[in-house]
C-alpha cells in the first residue's frame, strides 16, 4: 500500500537525518524550498516538540549542563530512542540512562542521578492516589492476621538511593525556596536517600535516614508484619510512628498480596 510506504519513509526521516533525501522523493518542491527542506521543517518541528518536553521534564539537569549541551544531547536521544507510544507523558524515562553513557558526563554521574530524581517526580504526578486504609480497623484482627499484615506506601512513592546529594542539588536550583543550599557549598560526594510521593495535589520530596529508608524499602517489598518485627526488632514501633505521621504509609492488606505493584524507578 503506497500510503504505508510514504508514512514509513516520512517518519524515518523525522528520527534519522540520513533518511531525509529518501522521504523527499514523496514530496513536491515548491517555491523557494526544496522537497528535502520541506521534510526538514517536520524533522525540526518533531524534534522541537520533544526537546521542549524534555526540557520541562528535566529542568535542573538543563540548568546543570546548560541549554546547548542539553539540546544536543536531547536531539541525539530523540533520534536514537524515538517515542513509541501515543502518550507523551511516558516519553523520556530512558533519558537518565542515555546521559549515563555520555562520554562528557563520566566524571559527573551525579547529574544522571539528578535526572532519575526528576523522572521520579514526573512519575509521581502521573500515578493514581489509592484510597487510604482505616488503620483503626487493625485492632479487630486476630493475632495470625496481624502477623500476616502487609502495608503500602502511596502508589506514587519513589524510593531513590543516590551516591550524590540529589535532594540538595535539586533544592539548590529551586528559585522559590529562600533558604535553599548554595550549589557551590554542596559536597557532591555525600550520598542521599530520597522519598518522593504524591498526596492528592501535593508532591512531597524528602531525604530519609538510613533506618527509615531500610524500613520503607522492606514495606515496599511486601514484608509482612512478622518479617518487619524480625528485621527491625524494637525499632519497629518508632519507625511506624514516624512513617504514619509523615503519611509514608497509606494502606494495609490482610491477605497475602499476589500482585506486586510494578514501579518506575
Amino acid at each position, binding site marked *: 500500500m503506497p500510503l504505508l510506504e510514504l508514512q514509513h519513509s516520512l517518519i524515518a526521516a523525522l528520527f534519522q537525518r540520513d533518511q531525509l533525501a529518501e522521504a523527499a522523493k514523496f514530496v513536491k518542491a515548491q517555491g523557494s524550498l526544496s522537497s528535502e527542506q520541506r521534510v526538514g521543517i517536520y524533522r525540526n518541528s518533531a524534534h522541537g516538540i520533544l526537546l521542549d518536553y524534555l526540557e520541562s521534564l528535566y529542568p535542573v539537569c538543563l540548568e546543570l549542563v546548560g541549554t546547548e549541551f542539553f539540546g544536543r544531547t536531547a536531539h541525539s536521544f530523540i533520534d536514537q530512542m524515538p517515542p513509541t507510544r501515543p502518550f507523551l507523558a511516558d516519553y523520556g524515562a530512558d533519558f537518565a540512562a542515555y546521559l549515563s553513557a555520555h562520554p562528557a558526563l563520566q566524571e559527573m554521574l551525579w547529574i544522571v542521578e539528578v535526572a532519575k530524581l526528576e523522572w521520579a517526580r514526573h512519575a509521581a504526578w502521573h500515578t493514581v492516589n489509592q484510597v487510604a486504609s482505616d*488503620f483503626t480497623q487493625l485492632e479487630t484482627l486476630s493475632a495470625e492476621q496481624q502477623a500476616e499484615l502487609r502495608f503500602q506506601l502511596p502508589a506514587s512513592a519513589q524510593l531513590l538511593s543516590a551516591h550524590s546529594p540529589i535532594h540538595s542539588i535539586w533544592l539548590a536550583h529551586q528559585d522559590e525556596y529562600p533558604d535553599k543550599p548554595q550549589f557551590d557549598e554542596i559536597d557532591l560526594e555525600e550520598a542521599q536517600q530520597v522519598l518522593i510521593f504524591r498526596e492528592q495535589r501535593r508532591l512531597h520530596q524528602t531525604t530519609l535516614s538510613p533506618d527509615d529508608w531500610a524500613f520503607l524499602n522492606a514495606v515496599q517489598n511486601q514484608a509482612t508484619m512478622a518479617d518487619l518485627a524480625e528485621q527491625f526488632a524494637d525499632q519497629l*514501633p518508632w519507625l511506624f510512628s514516624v512513617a504514619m505521621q509523615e503519611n509514608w504509609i497509606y494502606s494495609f492488606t490482610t491477605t497475602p498480596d499476589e500482585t506486586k505493584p510494578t514501579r518506575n524507578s
Partner: protein
Amino acid sequence: MMQNKQIITATLMAIGLSAALSVANAEDKKVETEKCAGIVKAGMNDCGANGHSCAGKAAKDNDPAEWITLPKGTCEKITGGTVVKE
C-alpha cells in the same frame, strides 16, 4: 517468636495511636508535615512537564559534525571547562 509478638503488639499500638492522632488533628498535622517533611510542591503550576499541543516548532536541527560535548551550565564551575572529545 515470643519477642516478635511483643514487638507486633507494641507496633500496632503505635499505629493505632498515630491513626487516632491523624483523625483528630488532620489540619494541624498538614502544617507540621510541611515544616518537617522536606519539600512540598502543590498545584498544577508545579507539576512539571509541559504537555502536548497541536502547534508546530522551529527547533534548529544542527549537523552532528559540529557538535561539541561540553556541559556549560552550573557544571562548568566543576569541570573547570575541560573539553571532552567524543
